[in-house]
């Protein structure tokens, strides 16, 4: 059974590779966008204006109650009811971005709450205010302390990208499923997909370790 499964997989390697690259591309695009959006949401979350901070906190809490798969369906099949029809790839990236931006904003906020007050107060005393305080004093510290958790979030984005199979995005899980449905090799197909996801996540973990060592060296 092993030889047959591996043989078929090797023949279909282009399809599997295409799926893998699609997953990689989607995850990277979503991670960048979610990171940027998350930063913006974080800035709003710690805003001095109570109304803004509360509204954002409420929205972020709401997002954290929604399963990603439902959110995906909402963006893809729900938005058209309001006249917004987006293609499946775009819808997938948008869903991944918004969903994970909320989590990133929340984890950055956690990092912010854990910062020693003195550093920020000193910065204020030296004349850094509002967005300059944010950019030069708060963000560097928060980002540095959040690196492992941001790495976790990246892994989460990679895993969530598999849900996009339900809106017909031809990523890795879709490729594995189509190969096994056509050539009847479910074990080889899905184990291969699992191993490829593992490779991606190990790469992220390695990246996090590298960044941490660099940060240590700089300190």
């Amino acid at each position: 059974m092993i030889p047959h499964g591996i043989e078929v997989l090797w023949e279909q390697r282009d399809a599997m590779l295409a799926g893998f690259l699609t997953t990689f591309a989607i995850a990277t695009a979503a991670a960048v966008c979610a990171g940027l959006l998350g930063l913006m949401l974080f800035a709003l979350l710690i805003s001095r204006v109570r109304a803004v901070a509360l509204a954002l906190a409420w929205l972020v809490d709401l997002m954290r109650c929604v399963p990603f798969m439902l959110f995906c369906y909402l963006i893809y099949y729900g938005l058209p009811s309001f006249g917004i029809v987006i293609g499946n790839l775009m819808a997938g990236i948008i869903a991944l971005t918004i969903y994970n931006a909320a989590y990133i904003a929340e984890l950055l906020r956690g990092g912010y709450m854990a910062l020693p007050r003195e550093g920020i107060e000193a910065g204020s005393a030296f004349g850094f205010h509002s967005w300059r305080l944010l950019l030069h004093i708060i963000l560097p510290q928060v980002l540095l302390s959040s690196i492992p958790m941001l790495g976790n979030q990246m892994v989460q984005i990679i895993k969530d990208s598999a849900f996009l199979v339900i809106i017909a995005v031809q990523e890795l899980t879709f490729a594995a499923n189509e190969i096994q449905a056509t050539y009847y090799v479910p074990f080889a197909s899905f184990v291969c997909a699992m191993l490829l996801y593992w490779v991606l996540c190990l790469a992220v973990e390695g990246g996090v370790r590298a960044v941490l060592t660099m940060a240590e060296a700089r300190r």
Partner: protein
Amino acid sequence: MTAFSLTRRGVLLGSAAALTMTAAAKAATLAEIKKRGYMTVATEDDFRPFEFTKDGKPTGYDQELLEMFKTKAGFEIRQDIIPWTGILPGVTTGKYDAAVTAVLVTQERMKTLDFCSPVVESVDYYLKRKGDKKIQGIKDLSGLPLGVEAGSAMLKMLPQLDDMLKATGGSLGKIVSYQGYPEAYQDLALGRIDYVVNVWLSLQTIAKEKPDTFEVGEAVSKPTYIAWPLLKGNTELLALMNEFLLGARKDGSMYALQKKYFDTTYEHMPEAPTANV
């Protein structure tokens, strides 16, 4: 985790996988089925009018034929309703003794599956939005995005449509593969795709259910047959099911069901399944 190298991990997992890959589940022969008292079948969850749920109960052309078979079989039939992508792999790996669901007979499939006597004849057609002036005939399909079920024979038969389009100077547009047809129809209504390719019998049903949204176009494939597959070599179970199916033709009950679900009967199907594709 730091002391654990990648290669050691790889070797451990690889050997574990290799050790477990030796045995393959085997579908049960008729004797084994009679001994244990039941047979397992797989059915797709929504492929109208062959199988679908109404008021929470599974129903449809295949379902009613199965109910008739149950009364004649003499053993229990355990039915699993699962998504399409699991059905054929489930039969070839022995998880299910048979798939009682609409499966197009293709030469590729006949290499690993034994098909029962055909239950219906089939041609692929395209479905478009009602009143879509962009599509007046097959040649207008050139370059337009289409929807089809992932891993299906309809997907496999698209090259026939491609040939038709090439003959008029066009070509097949982008193919979107859905996990099931309901999602494809929804996207057609939303405008993400311009046509859906499916067997004529299913398209008739959806066009009847939603006459203001959809209309059926023309044939995009050669005729072929739909039959229930079993794992290759399960000859006695195949013989039992064929006995039932041919009997249903003789006493007219199959044709009555065809009239009920398809508004037409196919009385000249061959007794043995053949593949034109």
